[in-house]
């Protein structure tokens, strides 16, 4: 399959802060790639470079083979963007916003109008279509902005945290819409904080932290990378947490994760159901009562925490070079 977005060695500095630190990225045609990373990882900066909004200090990038730096005007013809912050005109109505965007994509007057109405329907904004956007709720603005990205049926789409602030129904609806678009041949790069979203949608996941790619692969690849399975146990009595930790420590192949409030302990294991049986026996013999037991593959949450755990906690405004290793859990 053809590569449609390609970037090598992207560097972007803001004074002391290194937003992108040699980022490489590659997206094949007709796939969905999710950029994951803690706050400040450089996701928005990467999207801004690829959509011609900012110029990197170093590195090169192409979209559909066109150089983002030397021919931004051509790139803009091929892309649809919905940024992290809704870019709509608050004094115009929803319809006027989309109609204007269509005209600026040079769809022609008739096409722009019909496309605007169609998208307003799709995004459940038909009732509010002729109201000024300043009367919209946050989620409605978000939806309008997303509609803006889809006006021209662009072959390459960039959505920066598309479902942040959307309710469950809108989110599901958007996922369906995105899948349809991609099935029809579009390519999508999205950033998200919802790992379920990446799990559901993404063919490939790119985990970035401090402006660098730290992991890359399919969701399954990443889960395999973190390895094995997880036993998750919720004890009935909070006082038993220490005992639960002790028991699971013996079975675990890596660090435990625990949460006091929900009275759960999660242990990475490698022995499957046999291991689970032994663990349960141990709980029984120590008379520790259990209210929930789960044996599961690692989720993307586990992957994310394992990969970025240390930095999610300490990265806020620290321009220091990336230090590998993990320290506690993410604070997000």
């Amino acid at each position: 399959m053809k590569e449609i977005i390609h970037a090598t060695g992207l560097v972007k500095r803001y004074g002391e802060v290194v937003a992108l630190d040699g980022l490489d990225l590659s997206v094949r045609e007709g796939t969905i790639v999710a950029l994951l990373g803690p706050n400040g990882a450089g996701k928005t900066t990467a999207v801004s470079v690829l959509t011609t909004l900012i110029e990197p200090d170093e590195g090169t990038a192409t979209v559909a083979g066109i150089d983002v730096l030397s021919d931004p005007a051509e790139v803009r013809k091929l892309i649809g963007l919905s940024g992290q912050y809704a870019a709509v005109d608050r004094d115009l109505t929803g319809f006027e916003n989309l109609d204007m965007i269509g005209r600026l994509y040079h769809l022609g007057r008739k096409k722009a109008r019909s496309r605007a109405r169609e998208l307003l329907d799709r995004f459940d904004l038909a009732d509010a279509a002729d109201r000024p956007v300043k009367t919209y709720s946050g989620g409605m603005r978000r939806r309008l902005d997303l509609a803006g990205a889809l006006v021209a049926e662009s072959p390459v789409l960039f959505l920066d945290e598309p479902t942040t602030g959307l309710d469950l129904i809108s989110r599901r609806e958007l996922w369906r819409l995105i899948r349809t678009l991609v099935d029809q041949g579009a390519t999508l790069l999205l950033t998200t904080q919802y790992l379920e979203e990446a799990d559901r949608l993404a063919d490939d996941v790119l985990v970035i932290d401090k402006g660098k790619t730290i992991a890359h692969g399919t969701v399954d690849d990443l889960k395999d990378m973190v390895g094995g399975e997880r036993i998750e146990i919720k004890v009935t009595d909070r006082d038993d947490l220490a005992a639960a930790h002790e028991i699971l420590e013996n079975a675990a192949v890596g660090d435990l994760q625990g949460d006091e409030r929900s009275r759960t302990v999660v242990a990475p294991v490698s022995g499957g159901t046999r291991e689970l049986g032994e663990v349960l026996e141990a709980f029984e013999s120590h008379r520790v009562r259990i209210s929930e037991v789960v044996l599961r593959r690692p989720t993307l949450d586990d992957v994310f925490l394992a990969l970025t755990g240390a930095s999610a906690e300490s990265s806020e405004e620290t321009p220091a070079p990336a230090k590998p290793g993990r320290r506690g859990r993410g604070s997000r």
Partner: protein
Amino acid sequence: MNFLSALGDGLVIARRNLIKLKRVPEVLVFVLLSPIMFVLLFAYVFGSAIDIPGGSYREFLMAGIFGQTVVFGATFTGAGLAEDMQRGIIDRFRSLPMSRAAVVFGRTASDVIYNIITLTVMATAGLIVGWRIRGSLLDALAGFLLLLLFAYSVSWIMALLGLSVPSPEVLNNASFIVIFPMTFIANTFVPAESLPTVLRVFAEWNPISSLVQATRELFGNIPPGTPEPASWALQNPVIYTVSCACLIIAVFAPLAVRRYIRVAKKT
């Protein structure tokens, strides 16, 4: 990007600005009420206090008020652009395959429409308080066109300023400091000859003076027996005004567009 599609993009933006005119009441106040206020204020406060031999001061004033108001109105172009640059929509424009000049062209174009509305309102208010066009209708129309052309050229100066200041408020204050004296050290409200020497020389070559002189002549509002003005600029006010307007556009339009592209690229 060919010229026609750039023009089309500019019109799309101009249309958007005009839609906003309907929606934002403050704008309407600026475009409609303040010109009416100017006409009434000047007509009744100064118009009745000062006499000029052989004519009506109120009539003499009107071209000055028109000129001052449309030149001040150009501030609007700059403030509008400064505000646009602060709003999220600019990020949308930056990612669209539209002409880079469209945002600035569209803004200056929609401000011509603002000025047409303003002039219509002011002329009506003027007619009500006793101003009359004494020349031919065609000449009067030429007078209005000249006002629009000159205001359009000042729009480009303001566009450049609007893209260079951090916020619309800064622009409003800064332009007041520049435009206010420019419109007063001129023949807008008093004949240039009555000013002290240094100011007189400035006033005689101030394009706002020639603009007002030209419209005054085209409206037939120069009282008979008024002495011939001293400077070439005021003797040939139409040519001088048109030349100044063209020169200003030729210099400031490219600067403003370039400035927009630079500002839009950052952050």
